[in-house]
């Protein structure tokens, strides 16, 4: 084995050893973020600010899990690309559905409108 290969294996060993500490630290960080999220919902801030804070915290937790616990940080970039294709398609579907059903014509009927429809059917 060449000197470069030896150095590579040694580096890989150190990485495997240090992963234990990384995992524990990240888990603690995720637990703390979850605690902060729960406290955040009771803070007297405007709804858009609270919404933004919760989304950012959720995204941070999501990214920490996929890049560290799921090893995307150390794996081939193709794994990241493959997963993000699904994620973007899923996110895009969510966005499209929310837009589609948020349109006026797609809104569920109110009680008064439902009554009108019922009376029209009876008549």
């Amino acid at each position: 084995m060449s000197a470069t290969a030896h150095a590579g294996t040694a580096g890989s060993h150190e990485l495997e050893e240090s992963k234990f500490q990384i995992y524990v630290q990240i888990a603690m960080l995720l637990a703390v973020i979850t605690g902060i999220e729960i406290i955040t919902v009771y803070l007297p801030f405007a709804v858009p600010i609270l919404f933004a804070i919760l989304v950012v915290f959720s995204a941070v937790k999501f990214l920490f899990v996929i890049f560290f616990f799921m090893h995307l940080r150390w794996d081939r970039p193709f794994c990241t690309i493959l997963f993000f294709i699904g994620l973007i398609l899923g996110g895009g579907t969510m966005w499209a559905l929310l837009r589609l059903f948020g349109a006026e014509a797609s809104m569920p009927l109110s009680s008064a409108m439902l009554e009108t429809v019922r009376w029209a059917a009876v008549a």
Partner: protein
Amino acid sequence: MSSTAAGAIDHHFDPSTSTGIPNKKLLMWAFLASDCMFFGCLISTHLIYRLHPPPGVPSARSVFSIELTSFSTFILLMSSLMMALAVNAIQKGNLKSLRASLLTTIFFGCIFLGCQVYEFNNFVFEKHLTITNSILGTTFFTLTGTHGCHVAVGVFWLMLMYIRTFQPRDSSRDLRWFLCNALHIVAFIATILLGMRLVLGVVRGMEATGVSAATLAHFARGYFAELLGIVVSLGLLRWLAQPRGAVGFNETNAIDVEMMGLYWHFVDIVWIVIFTVVYLLEYI
């Protein structure tokens, strides 16, 4: 891979494939990408009806229990940590640590499932929210129930992987190994189901009558069969876990554990999104 010496395998590169990624891992990432779309649709369906609720839908805030959900979120996060440690252990060839981590992950997964059973039970019988009586119930139970099914499949997979770590080096024509496997699975399922029944029964009883020594003694008598079943199945699990010669499960199987880990972490990230979108947003 030719070398099996501990630490000699590069777990992030497979020279035998054109992409450098092990085929099993690539398959799992492709599956998880497709599952993103599946959960995306379920989450958006729930959100649509929360943003535009039809008349007569109950307030989600009056139904949900943020304390219980926060606890189960914490438990799932810790199970993710244990799963990551399990993968780390087998990549270093440490079978003992792998088994301990897998058992802890199974334990945490069962606590999460128990919390969900308790929550669903509470919603249906106390809050009168069922899957058919309101659109909130329909979208909520479909989304969280599907996630719960994923967790249950994950627990079963973890259980099978734990049992596989005891596989003898040459088990091709070993009937004893097959019988041990079957017994191991039965003992595991019995422990989990009886344990859940016992804990949920005692918690529900304590809620109704309060906590005292007399109440606990009453429950011990009432759940004697379950207690006995748990003791027997735990004893069986302990006996089946005794070392019986060389095992065939080693560092070369790390990819199988890693693949299972990917699935388990995915279940965790889906819950991260559900916890924020379905539960926390109701409170702002």
